[in-house]
């Protein structure tokens, strides 16, 4: 593979990963925390209603996990396509 096509393949793989992560980002905050909040509030975990928990707790925990997940995966992709830092 030439350097040019390798870089293009890398960028495609990156965009796919970003799309996956941002879908999760959207689902836990906008979908679970706002749009479907009433439907999820029917379910309780401990003293929390699920929709409320996503809006005030869960979404933030998942955001943190998402960033490290992305950093870890893209690090592997960097090396696979040989575009990593020295």
């Amino acid at each position, binding site marked *: 593979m030439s350097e040019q096509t390798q*870089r293009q393949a*890398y*960028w495609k793989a*990156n965009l796919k990963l*970003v799309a996956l*992560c*941002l879908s999760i*980002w959207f689902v836990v*905050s*906008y979908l679970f*925390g*706002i*749009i479907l*909040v*009433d439907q999820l*509030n029917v379910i*309780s*975990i*401990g*003293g*929390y*209603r699920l929709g*409320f*928990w996503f*809006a*005030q*707790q869960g*979404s*933030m*925990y998942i*955001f*943190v996990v*998402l*960033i*490290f997940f*992305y*950093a870890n995966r*893209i*690090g592997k992709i*960097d090396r696979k396509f*040989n*575009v*990593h*830092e*020295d």
Partner: protein
Amino acid sequence: MDLKTLTFLVVGATFALYIGIAIWARASTTKEFYVAGTGVHPIANGMATAADWMSAASFISMAGLIAFMGYDASVYLMGWTGGYVLLALLLAPYLRKFGKFTVSEFIGERYYSKAARMVAVICLIVASITYVIGQMKGVGVAFSRFLEVDFHTGVFVGMTIVFIYAVMGGMKGITYTQIAQYCVLIFAYTVPAIFISLNLTGNPIPQLGLGSSMADGSGMALLDKLDMIVTDLGFAAYTAQKMSTMNMFLLTLSLMIGTAGLPHVIMRFFTVPKVADARTSAGWALVFIAILYTTAPAVGAMARLNLMNTIQSGEVGAVEGNMVYADRPSWFKSWETTGLLKFEDKNGDGRVQYYNDKNEAFAAKAAGFGWQGNEMVKVDRDIMVLANPEVANLPNWVIALVAAGGLAAALSTAAGLLLAISTAISHDVIKGMISPGISEKKELLASRIAMAGAIVVAGYLGMNPPGFAAQVVALAFGLAASSIFPALMMGIFNKNMDDKGAIVGMLVGLLSTLLYIFWFKGWFFIPGTAMAANTPDNWFMGISPEAFGAVGAMLNFAAAYVVSKITPPPPEHIQHLVEDIRVPMGAAKAAADH
């Protein structure tokens, strides 16, 4: 030892620490001054970013907002944290790879246009000054409440401290001071929260306590109990949604992309050694931010519960159900003297009735109890966090610590913003536009002078805040969301975006957002010049002015795309530049090319 002496000691000790760090971390080159020599470890940078981001508003006001808005305040929790996901995935690593000092510099080079850089500089300075006014005001308030000195003296002392470490150390001094400030503020925030959670639910972790049952023997979940207490007094249920779904959605989105577009946040990611570090650094920043942001909902709900329970100590409607004013606790008295808590005995029974008299059905019922209107005529939201340790009967050193924490939050944010302003002036305006041939030594001097000037202006505005200080925060986020974020994102993800598309897009986003905010809040916030009353009925599709930034950003993307399609693509070397920033390889070299 009395509270005042103790507070002086604790606050004095933290100030001595900040200045000590400043002397140790002096900056000797522009690279150290602007980006701390790009040698900051990602965890350290994450902690500094968290302190930079969490302002006096996060520390003092947010829990109060949550206490009174309940579920609706989720927009702030998600909005001010979700932006870091966008930063880590869409902006930070690429801007670090680009390897320059400022956001405007990236926009100027990527769009090969001084006009684009100028638009970015203006947005940056307006957004930062807006913000810094609030911080200086926060410093003054914290000083005057806890040290019983004059408000102006408080602002002046705060200015002097920031002056010493920011002018001397630049980004390097600020970064290391912010790490210390983070430790002070997070300790001060969580200690009272742990005690209160333990007290109410028996669970020492506030995040779990909020979802636990009450320890009062009722076995009821805390949130259910809170819902019951507030609805019994005619207020809307705590966990219920009051804002429209559309507005919640757009407000959250505006705050998220606004966060990702605020220059003082983005520039933190120029300070790490590698591209990979920029990604993890955003993650660490969010870890440290989330510690406070996930505690805040517990603090808010528990403070509301304590407040309601103190006043309505028994059954609603029974005479002895309400607190006797003469027996009020000491924290009630001390906040009354500040004027932030106000009681008026409307029915003259010597007891306090706190209920929602705007709720007609309940007001009629209350009249049957002999209540003649809500008697807590003022309950300022900002006292929630500050009064917390007193409400929970915690020792004086905890109260002193909260004062130091509030000051740390305000000072760290102020320093970050001042650096963003002075960098914009010395690097973007002086070196980038007026005299490109300036020597490093002179540029360093210019940035120190700019910093000193910015501190004086910020201090002046903090002492004489324009009447619209609270309104302009919406403006700062609106500007960042509608102009800066889309321009940066398209610069990285759309190779064919050209100078004309980007400039038209930024202007469309900027002007539409400004127009919408001014339409409902008055031209330049001058009272009486609003074109329509700022009420949900008048808003376009029910979108509040604060939430319009997301719409402005969409207009920006659309306009830029259309213009870039009908104008020639950017030159070859720009397309190569974009290809180059998309891969991490060679970041060390890019940074060395300054």
